């Protein structure tokens, strides 16, 4: 059995939906709270800093915040675990922030031999049906959703598209989505503790799930 190819481009992000105050989020704040090192702080680069929108890089990490969305992202796979810590650390401090959903995303691009590229597309979306109604049908985007099997509301979505970064290549994205406001309906309390708890208790499962989905797609065979 051959192992799947290594991704040519990696990406990971954690996205929180809720109510945020973008003006708080500044590299100096993360440094003051001890969430980033002196070196990381010194390397920070602010892109946009407005009352309702903030985006900046801290070394290996990009942070984007709007009034309803907080996102941390990295393209360095060796640092993906640290994304988790940035979110946990931030929202242990800002513990009364209402967070209604959290998603952990993996995004990978694989360069493939052209024949294999076609084979994956045909296996995931057989063209028999489409050939009767479309000329030259091809897969542009495929989203498949599965239910969560843990104790959380939400879903797991896999997206497959032709890569725009490597050619011929395939993009595979996995969105591990936890809907937290469903879980807090009984208690009526929505703060950051549920999101932090997801990252503390479910991280191993999240880390294991995305590569398994990605491997499955990469190994798919046309019938």
């Amino acid at each position: 059995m051959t192992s799947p190819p290594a991704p040519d481009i990696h990406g990971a992000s954690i996205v929180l939906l809720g109510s945020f105050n973008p003006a708080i989020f500044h590299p100096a704040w993360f440094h003051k709270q001890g969430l980033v090192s002196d070196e990381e702080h010194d390397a920070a680069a602010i892109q946009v800093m407005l009352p309702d929108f903030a985006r900046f890089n801290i070394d290996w990490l990009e942070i984007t915040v709007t009034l309803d969305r907080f996102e941390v992202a990295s393209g360095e796979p060796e640092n993906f675990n640290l994304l988790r810590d940035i979110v946990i650390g931030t929202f242990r401090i800002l513990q009364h922030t209402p967070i209604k959903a959290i998603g952990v995303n993996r995004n990978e691009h694989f360069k493939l031999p052209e024949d294999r590229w076609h084979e994956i597309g045909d296996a995931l979306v057989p063209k028999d049906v489409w050939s009767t109604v479309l000329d030259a049908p091809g897969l542009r985007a495929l989203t498949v959703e599965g239910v969560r099997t843990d104790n959380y509301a939400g879903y797991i979505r896999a997206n497959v598209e032709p890569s725009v970064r490597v050619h011929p290549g395939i993009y595979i994205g996995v969105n591990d989505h936890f809907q937290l406001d469903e879980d807090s309906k009984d208690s009526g309390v929505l703060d950051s503790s549920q999101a932090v708890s997801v990252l503390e208790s479910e991280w191993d499962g999240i880390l294991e799930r995305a590569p398994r989905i990605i491997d499955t797609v990469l190994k798919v065979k046309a019938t």
Partner: protein
Amino acid sequence: MTGSSNQHYQHYLRRFPHSSTAVGSDENQSLTDVTFAVGAIQGHSIGPSIRPSWTNHSQRHSPDRSTSATSIGESTGTTDEFLEDPTARVRSYAPQSLAEQTPVSPPVVLASWDGVITEVTEETFSARVTQLATEGPEEFAEFPLSDISPGDASLVRPGGLFYWTVGYETTKRGRIRRISEIRLRRLPPKSEEDRNRAKAWALEALQLFEDSGS
């Protein structure tokens, strides 16, 4: 605040429906706005019957492609937005910009461990480590202090937490280079509220344990 910042902001807001935590479809265009814009104008699809069209890469920048790409989602950007904001390339970061700047391919992670420091000596530190995403046993390891980045040095103390990642990267000339990185974790202490919640959970678990034993 600049005009380009405003465009950037509006562009960002359009990208994401408020109910989604995905950076999915748009994220094929990946972590940068540059690639997002480029993504919006690419017209590749998977399927043997359109194979001839892929060979003409110049088509990727045609207006027709831009129009057709909007069928993926209303939040898709356009070439014009990219062209209006040439500084976008400066703002982009990883992975494309890193790949362009460094002489190696992106690293491949083989395994990661979660570690707790148990002892620190003059030249080394010892730790209990558990491999992430596996059911592996707890192991013990010793690391040279020289493996620690200066910015993390103050965090090396008994009880300190860290991630240890091993993998490899490939140089442009095809040589495999092993990488091993230790990053100290920077977590603020749990709040009083968290501690009370944990205590309540522990008491509840203890009660269940006692009830099942009686």
